């Protein structure tokens, strides 16, 4: 992707531009062409999509392809971007086109086109078949595609109550201006805030006999508050504690059930988000961070809130159990994995303590990964990756299933655009809640010397997913079973299996919440995907904490 595709473009020196691999937190890519507001509630006619798809399937079969799938996609994005009392940008974008993938002579070929005419689709299909035949010449092992029974004509839609695309721009601007005003009044020096809405209208057809129409919605409302102490030259940021969701605009309408007050006074959010209240809290917490005591480095028992733990799960389990990484397909860029096939085959590799059961899914309502079918027409589901601490499975797609002896794909295939080829992407990966009743307050009662971490901060992990370092938004000291005071400059360093084997307890289902990201990068050329991670609050004993404060002299 070129730099100029990014809204807050960074073609220059100081821009916050293109991310490489891994997650990025406040990137705003601009897809396709900007469209008027009325276009955001329209759709491409279903019969037309079926006719176009049939053109490609027939042309591919006639050209000798043994398999073909067609994705006709219309990708809509809306951004409302503000700082303080100013709206910096309002952008609507649309990108429409078709991606055609074929198997010929045992090799994959792919071509994409924005030309949605019968002739345009036939030409792209011919190109895909030609590329497959060229790739077949130097290929040593033919593609083995796990069986997938056609499902006929079906449809699926994200269960939303209120489409964010249909909410007037003025309403969104008014919300952000009120949020920004409240933060400034509460002591913030600066605030940036964004509403980011996504609608992917995806039509999939394959020679297996599937015609799948899906309407996928996602929403995110991040902000970042800055507090400054001019005299000392010190500044601190506190980012919003909202979660990117597979929900409608109703997520931004606060309900009492969505508000969760944590031991020690921080407030986080679940099923709905109060952006206004969070911005006010952020302003006072950013000011408090300026004066908070700097952490003493050493070993601590960590109590990690789901608003923080999702990112640790993502990096140290989600990526490590992607089969393409395990096999070496991402070696040059995203990297490989320590969770090698021999560890899995031993049925005895202790990834974590017996408290750790981690599952993958593409079905939990409200998550970013939830869809009816993946981008190769496989019905989605749920499966365990780590069961009672033991590595039991990976994440696979159709052409990988045979490698682990699986009878079918788990439905992990995704492409970020009609113009990108689909490949294995992370499902939602979540830590299962504990079976015994346990609240965060009860968990903290037993901790003598610990740190309670809320929200995600800086993050970095090696290319085999062993050594990681994580920060956070809010850190609280725990002394003799009580949350005492806010502390600062905290980051913990971990070795993945040691960390998960130090998991002493996980709170119960009542505390189960999600975090997630819109921007998980992988592949060359890079593609992004959106993914959620659920957990309840969890305790990890004896983790190494470093102090991140430095002096520039």
């Amino acid at each position: 992707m070129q730099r100029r595709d990014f809204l807050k473009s960074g073609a220059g020196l100081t821009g916050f531009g293109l991310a490489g691999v891994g997650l990025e937190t406040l990137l705003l890519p601009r897809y396709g062409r900007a469209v008027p507001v009325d276009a955001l509630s329209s759709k491409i006619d279903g019969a037309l999509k079926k006719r176009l798809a049939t053109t490609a399937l027939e042309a591919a079969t006639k050209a000798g392809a043994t398999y073909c799938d067609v994705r006709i996609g219309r990708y809509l994005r809306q951004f409302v971007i503000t700082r303080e009392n100013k709206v910096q940008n309002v952008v609507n974008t649309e990108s429409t086109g078709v991606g055609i993938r074929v198997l010929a002579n045992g090799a994959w070929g792919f071509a994409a086109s924005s030309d949605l005419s019968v002739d345009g689709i036939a030409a792209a299909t011919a190109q895909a078949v030609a590329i497959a035949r060229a790739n077949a010449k130097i290929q040593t092992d033919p593609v083995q595609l796990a069986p997938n029974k056609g499902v006929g004509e079906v449809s699926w839609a994200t269960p939303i109550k209120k489409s964010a695309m249909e909410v007037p721009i003025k309403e969104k601007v008014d919300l952000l201006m009120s949020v920004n005003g409240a933060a400034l009044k509460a002591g913030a020096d600066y605030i940036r805030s964004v509403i980011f809405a996504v609608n992917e209208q995806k039509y999939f057809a394959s020679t297996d006999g599937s015609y799948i129409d899906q309407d996928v919605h996602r929403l995110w409302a991040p902000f970042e508050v800055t507090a400054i102490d001019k005299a000392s030259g010190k500044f601190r940021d506190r980012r919003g504690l909202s979660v990117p969701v597979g929900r409608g605009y109703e997520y931004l309408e606060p309900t009492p059930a969505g508000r969760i007050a944590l031991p020690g006074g921080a407030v986080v959010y679940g099923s709905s988000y109060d952006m206004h209240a969070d911005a006010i809290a952020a302003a006072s917490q950013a000011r408090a961070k300026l004066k908070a005591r700097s952490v003493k480095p050493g070993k601590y028992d960590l109590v990690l809130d789901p608003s923080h733990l999702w990112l640790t799960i993502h990096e140290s389990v989600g990526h490590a159990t992607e089969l393409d990484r395990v096999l070496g397909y991402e070696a040059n860029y995203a990297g490989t994995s320590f969770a090698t096939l021999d560890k899995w085959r031993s049925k005895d590799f202790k990834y974590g303590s017996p408290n750790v059961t981690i599952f993958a899914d593409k079905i939990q309502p409200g998550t970013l990964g939830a869809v009816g079918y993946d981008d190769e027409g496989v019905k989605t589901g749920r499966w365990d990756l780590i069961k009672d601490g033991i590595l039991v499975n990976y994440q696979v797609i159709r052409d990988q299933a045979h490698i682990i002896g699986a009878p079918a794909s788990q439905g992990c295939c995704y492409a970020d655009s009609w113009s990108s080829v689909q490949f294995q992407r992370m499902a939602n990966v979540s830590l299962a809640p504990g079976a015994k009743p346990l609240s965060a307050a009860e968990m903290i009662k037993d901790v003598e010397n610990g740190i309670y971490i809320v929200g995600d901060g800086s993050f970095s992990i090696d290319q085999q997913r062993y050594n990681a370092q994580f920060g956070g938004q809010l850190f609280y000291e725990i002394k003799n079973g009580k949350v005492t005071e806010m502390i600062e400059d905290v980051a913990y360093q971990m070795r993945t299996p040691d960390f998960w084997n130090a998991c002493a307890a996980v709170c119960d289902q009542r505390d189960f919440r999600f975090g997630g990201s819109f921007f998980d990068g992988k592949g060359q050329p890079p593609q992004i995907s959106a993914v959620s991670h659920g957990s309840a609050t969890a305790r990890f004993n004896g983790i190494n904490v470093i102090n991140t404060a430095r002096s520039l002299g």
Partner: protein
Amino acid sequence: MSIYSEQDAKAILDKVVALSKADECTASLDGSIEGNVRYALNNVSTSGIVSNAELAVQVAYGKRSGVATINEFDDASLARVVARAEELARLAPENPEFMPAIAKQTYRPSATFVDKTAAITPEYRAKVAADSILPCRANKLVAAGFFNDSQSFSALANSNGNFGYQRETSLAFTCTVRTDDAQGSGWVARSLADVDQFHAPTEIQIAMDKAKRSSSAKALEPGKYTVILEPAASADLLTYMFRGFDAREADEGRSFMTKKGGGNKLGEKVFDERVTIYADPWDPAAAVLPWDEDGLPREHTPLVTKGVVDNLQYSRYWAKLKGKTAVGEPGNLIMTGGDKSTMDLVKSTSKGVLVTRTWYIRMVDPQTVLLTGLTRDGTFYIENGEIKYPIKNFRFNESPVIMLNNVEEFGKPVRVLPQESSIVMMLPPMKLREFTFTSLSDAV
């Protein structure tokens, strides 16, 4: 068809500007053809060609502006895209920081286009893959790599009569080579404008050699070490640091360039006196477009001279507010050095660590630009001027600002492309003391 001639591009942009009934109109037309080949496990995994052109139209009524883009250029589409931009502009609230379209400019062309690079064929890309894969197959090594080439054009125009057009080419190659027992890993990267300077069989030997030599690495204690960073290893560290060169962020008090008590560090000595960095769109080895995203002309801009900060980046709005002249935002960074190669720097090192590549760098504390990340694909212990043995990868927690105060010596700059941005950089291999490694990684 996605590469337009200057004449055709101008005809489209002129039509767009004439169609707009708004107070002002700025339009840009960009097109590219990008080819790539990707391989892993000693097999080609994907290869393709992506061709695209896009027109962006920004219009304004007073301080209300709107942007629309389109990739069809017939008369009806041009009328539609202008109408859409105008509709969005009417819906947008007033932006008090709105800046009007720039005046007519004179752009001095830079040598960004090489015919031979634009003529790269699918067969050439297949050969790059074969040149990487075949020697690895023969040596019990496993190659995973990516070769990407691009030819493109950029054109811009506005209702003040401004116009610019220029073509560019580039290529980028990266390859990771691992031993077949997964105990060793090496890497090579090359970024160039001219394909004649690229020779895959030579490049792959670097990664193969590092893979073989990095097998069975020993563990060193984390701590402070003298390091030699190969040019590619420091590129992303500098990428993060230069985000702090934004004048507004510094003046607002939220950058390492913020001065205690208010204001910024312009004119202050912030780095070792051997640190000199400038931007120059006409640099023969690292040429970039002679204008920035706003269409402002880029200039030869000193950023740091002998450790002193000469320039911060002022947006047009911030420059106006602060009584400064806004200059085009740099598209490249050139750091001066000496004549020595990386291996020459090794020869003069009694004890130290050689770093091939850095990875997953993230900001830990913007106050000090404290960054964390890891070494990867070839980390070696140096003793008495020789590479003694491979060592396990380290996690570092280090600030590039501190690092550029702990300078021992710089070698000869080479062209590198960071992973976290697309700024073209000329960076020397750097020998630095007291670089902070905080933990060991088992990753190979």
